[in-house]
């Protein structure tokens, strides 16, 4: 386990004060909200989707520095990706970007809340618009079992 001194490096502190892609999208094609029942972190993600591509993505909510930094990084990674690429994003794509691979169990939930919301938003969109339900169930399960 990395020590906390390592975890709270400059990038995380900066993102927590100045998150990127923070806000709402008025004419979003899909939106999803979820929260962490244990700590109260709470995240919404809005997306614009055109031609099976995430053309815009924003998040808002309340959370700790870890949650804010990860949400910033995740939305940045997702923007511009195809739906297939977006649903293929994994934990470590987010965590490694911030050097958080060895985060302790309780905090993992802070780090991955936005990824859970993203996956949920994706299956909501796909289920509604693409009617490819078998896969949606898999995605749903993935979201449910993220941590």
């Amino acid at each position, binding site marked *: 386990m990395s020590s906390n001194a390592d975890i709270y490096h400059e990038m995380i502190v900066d993102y927590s004060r100045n998150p990127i892609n923070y806000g709402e999208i008025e004419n979003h094609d899909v939106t999803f909200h979820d929260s962490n*029942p244990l700590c109260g972190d709470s995240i919404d993600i809005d997306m614009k989707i055109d031609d099976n591509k995430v053309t815009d993505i924003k998040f808002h909510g309340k959370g700790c520095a870890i949650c804010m930094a990860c949400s910033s990084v995740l939305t940045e990674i997702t923007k511009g990706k195809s739906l297939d690429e977006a649903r293929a994003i994994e934990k470590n794509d987010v965590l490694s970007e911030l050097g958080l691979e060895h985060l302790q169990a*309780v905090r993992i939930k802070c780090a991955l809340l936005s990824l859970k919301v993203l996956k949920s938003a994706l299956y909501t969109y796909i289920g509604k618009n693409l009617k490819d339900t078998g896969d949606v169930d898999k995605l749903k399960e993935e979201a*449910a079992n993220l941590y």
Partner: protein
Amino acid sequence: MQSTETLFENIRNDFPILKRTVRDNKPLVYLDNASTTQKPNQVIDSITDYYQNHNANIHRAVYALAEEATEAYEATRDKIANFVNIKDRQEIIFVRGTTEAINLVAYAWGRTHIKEGDIVVTTEYEHHSNIVPWQLVTQEKHAKLEYIGMDDNGELILDDLDKYLATGKVKLVTFSLMSNVLGTITDAQKIIEKCKAAGVLTLIDGAQAVPHMKVDLEKLGCDFFAFSGHKMLGPTGIGVLWVRKSVLETMSPFHGGGDMIREVHKYETTWNDLPYKFEAGTPNIADVVGLGAAIDYLTKIGMDNVREHEIELTKYAIEKLSQVKGLHIYGTKDLSKRGGVISFNFADVHPHDVAQIIDEEGIAVRSGHHCAQVLMERLNVAATSRASFYIYNTKQDIDILVNSLNIVAKVFKL
């Protein structure tokens, strides 16, 4: 590897209470295992270690102790999944014991799904905890409670089940996998098969089965399963309810409070993920850890060895007790169909008097209705005496029991 014989000889050393004497300096002969079992050092020490080194509230906090406590708590969930073969750990809910488990189902599933005119089916040899909750919910819902009868051999009459299922009104069939009075092992496979064909859910009370034989939930195919830690070397105050996910998802929350919520607002609340939705409040963390140690202990012995040891004791006991004049044993003599529980009556002597007289010899047996008054009515007795065995019992224990009955005979001039 040690032989099973040495294995069971050494086991007694793990149980400090077995070194005790009672009453007039008599060594303790503990034969009330169907009621509760004794605890090995491994279990007692795990609780002590939890409090001495790791105690904290779980799930919510960031600090080191809370992390350790949460890990220890959740590790037991995985051990349980392994022990009774459950694929999805989210289906495992910690409760106080079998009684709370069944009541949870009666409230959180029953009150939503049982409607006027519906039928819940139980059996004549159930423990009160698998009767009274269903009386309460069927009365509330103007539904009916029906009983699968028992034959004179102590086995269920499954024709009764067919009759009830044929009405098309049955919502749930609930039965114990092993009777706590007669030791009968229920033919669960057959009952579940019939219920599945009729689209009816099944609940198994595993309180007596899980401690004494290998149980495989995946194979059984029931929908609800309950058991108690204290009957399987574990601490008091902890038990398990398992519910098939697809059914669990149709259940209303039971207790409201901390840990079971997602978001609480003044006038509305959303629920936490499974299984936490059903674990409100600070759980019995230390005893969950203790239950984990009990499962480790039993796993090391091997449940097949446990069963074999008990068959041997039961065989011996039935042989010996059958030789006592005036003594009547209830239930089947077919050892493949019964666990290590022997209920008997001794001539016209009331079971309480039997128990009290042999208590003086250091023997702990239960006498009374064993929380199975419906069965007592069926057997047409007020009570029975019951000796029930576990891994630390020996043939010598049975000899002492049988000898003590001579004293009873003398006092009551039999």
